[in-house]
C-alpha cells in the first residue's frame, strides 16, 4: 500500500515536471524565433544604410519597406493618443490622426538614421513578458557609447509578432507621446491637435 502510494506520487511529480519542462521549451522556441526575426530586420536596416550603391531616397524607401512589416504603426498611433481621446474621435478623425501620426513617426525614425555613422547593432536576449508580449533587448554600439534600445512586440490576431513600442534608454516612445498629447488636450481640442500635427507634417516634408 505504502509502495503504491509512493509510485503514484512519483508519477504525478514526473508528470508535473515534464509538463513544465515541455512548455518552457515551447515558449523558448517561439521567443528565439522572434529574436531572430527582429535581428534580421534591424540588420537589414543597417546593411541598407551602409550600401553605397543606393542613393538617399532609395535607402529611405528600402528601410521603410523593411520596418513596415515589423512595426504596427496604427496601434502605436492609437496607444499614443490613449483610449480616452481615441473614443471621442470619429472614424474620419481617427484615420486622419493615424495617418499624420504614422507619417511623423516614420519621419522621426528616418531623421534618427541621418545621424548614423559607424554604429553596430547588437541584438541581445529576447524576454517573454506575458503570453503575448516579448521584449527584444538591443544595443546600438558606437566607438564610445552604448545605447540600449528595447523593442516591445505583441502577438497579433494573425499570429504575427509586431512592435508596438520602442524604449530608447528607458524612454518609451508611446509613453512620451501619450503624456504630451494628454497635456496638449487639456488646453486644446482634438481638432486643434490634428491641425498642429498637419502643419508640422507640412513643415517637415
Amino acid at each position, binding site marked *: 500500500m505504502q509502495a503504491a502510494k*509512493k509510485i503514484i506520487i512519483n508519477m504525478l*511529480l514526473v508528470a508535473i515536471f515534464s509538463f513544465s519542462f515541455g512548455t518552457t521549451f515551447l515558449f523558448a522556441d517561439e521567443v528565439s524565433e522572434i529574436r531572430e526575426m527582429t535581428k534580421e530586420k534591424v540588420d537589414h536596416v543597417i546593411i541598407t544604410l551602409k550600401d553605397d550603391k543606393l542613393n538617399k531616397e532609395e535607402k529611405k524607401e528600402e528601410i521603410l519597406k523593411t520596418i513596415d512589416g515589423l512595426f504596427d504603426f496604427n496601434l502605436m498611433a492609437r496607444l499614443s493618443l*490613449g*483610449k480616452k481621446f481615441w473614443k471621442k474621435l470619429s*472614424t474620419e478623425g481617427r484615420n486622419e490622426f493615424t495617418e499624420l501620426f504614422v507619417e511623423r513617426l516614420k519621419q522621426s525614425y528616418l*531623421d534618427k538614421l541621418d545621424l548614423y555613422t559607424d554604429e553596430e547593432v547588437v541584438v541581445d536576449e529576447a524576454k517573454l513578458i506575458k503570453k503575448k508580449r516579448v521584449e527584444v533587448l538591443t544595443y546600438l554600439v558606437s566607438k*564610445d557609447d552604448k545605447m540600449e534600445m528595447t523593442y516591445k512586440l505583441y502577438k497579433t490576431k494573425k499570429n504575427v509578432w509586431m512592435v508596438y513600442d520602442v524604449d530608447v534608454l528607458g*524612454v518609451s516612445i508611446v509613453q512620451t507621446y501619450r503624456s504630451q498629447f494628454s*497635456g496638449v488636450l487639456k488646453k486644446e481640442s482634438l481638432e486643434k491637435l490634428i491641425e498642429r500635427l498637419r502643419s508640422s507634417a507640412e513643415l517637415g516634408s
Partner: protein
Amino acid sequence: MPKIIPAYLTFIIIFSISILFVKGQVVFSQENTQETSNAFPLTESSADDEGGFEDEFEDEFEDEFAASGQEVFDPLSGYNRVMTGFNDGFYIFVLDPVARGYRWVLPDTARRGVKNFFHNILFPLRFVNNALQLKAKNAGEEFLRFSINSTIGILGFWDPAKDLFGLEAHEEDFGQTLGYYGVGGGFHVVLPFLGPSNLRDMFSLYPDMQMDPVNYVEKRPYNFPKQEGEYLGVSRPTIQALEMKLFKTVNNESLRIGQYENLKKDAIELYPFLRDVYEQNRAKLIRE
C-alpha cells in the same frame, strides 16, 4: 536503498516547484487571455476592418502605460517652461556653435581622449555610489577600470579597460542611490544651464560635486602659477573649477553634435517632452 528514494523524491519536488515558480507568470497570464478572448468570439474578424480593437484587448495595452489625462504634480511648471526656453536658446546660440568650432579645431581622437580623461577622474563618484547600493561587482569593476585606465590608459586618456578587458563603466550618482533606497524624485525642476532635474537629483548635485576632482583643482600643490585672491567676489578655485567644467562640457558636446536638435523634433511641446524623457530615463537608471 531506502535512503536513496527520499532523496530522489525531494529532488524532483524541489525541481518541479522551482520550475513551476518560474513558469507561474506565464501560466497565470495564459488564463487571463483565455478569459478575455472567450468573451467576444464574434467580433474578432470585423474588429480589424474599422481600425479598432476590442476594449479588453486594448485595456491590456492601456495598463502598460500611464493613464492618459493623468495630472503630473508640477508646481514649478511656469518657471520650468521659461527656464527650458532659456536653456534651449543657450544651447542653440552659444553651446552648439562653440562646440562646432571646437570640433573643427581638434581631431576626433583628441576629443575622445579628453572625454575619457574627465570620465576617468570621476571614478570616486561611480565607485562610492555603486558601493552604497551594495553593487559589489560593479564597484569592483569600477576600481579595476580606474586602475587600468590610469596606468595603461595613460592618465585615463584611453580606455583599455573596455577595449582590451571588456570592462564597462557603471554610471551611478547620488540621485540614483537615493532612488535605489526608495526616495522619490519629487517635482520636476529645470536648472539653468544644467537642464532637467527634480528635487531629489537637485539636492544630490552637492554630494556629487564633492566627488568630482575638478572641484579640488586648486588644492593640488603643483598647480602653477598659483594665483590667490578674488574676482568679483568669486574665489579663484571656484573660477578654475568652472573653467574646467566648461571645457568638459564643450568637449563632450562636440562629440554629440546634432543629437539634441534631432531629439527635439519629436517634441510637440518642448518642456513636457524633455521632462518626460528625463524622468523616464532616470527611473530606468534607478531600476538597474
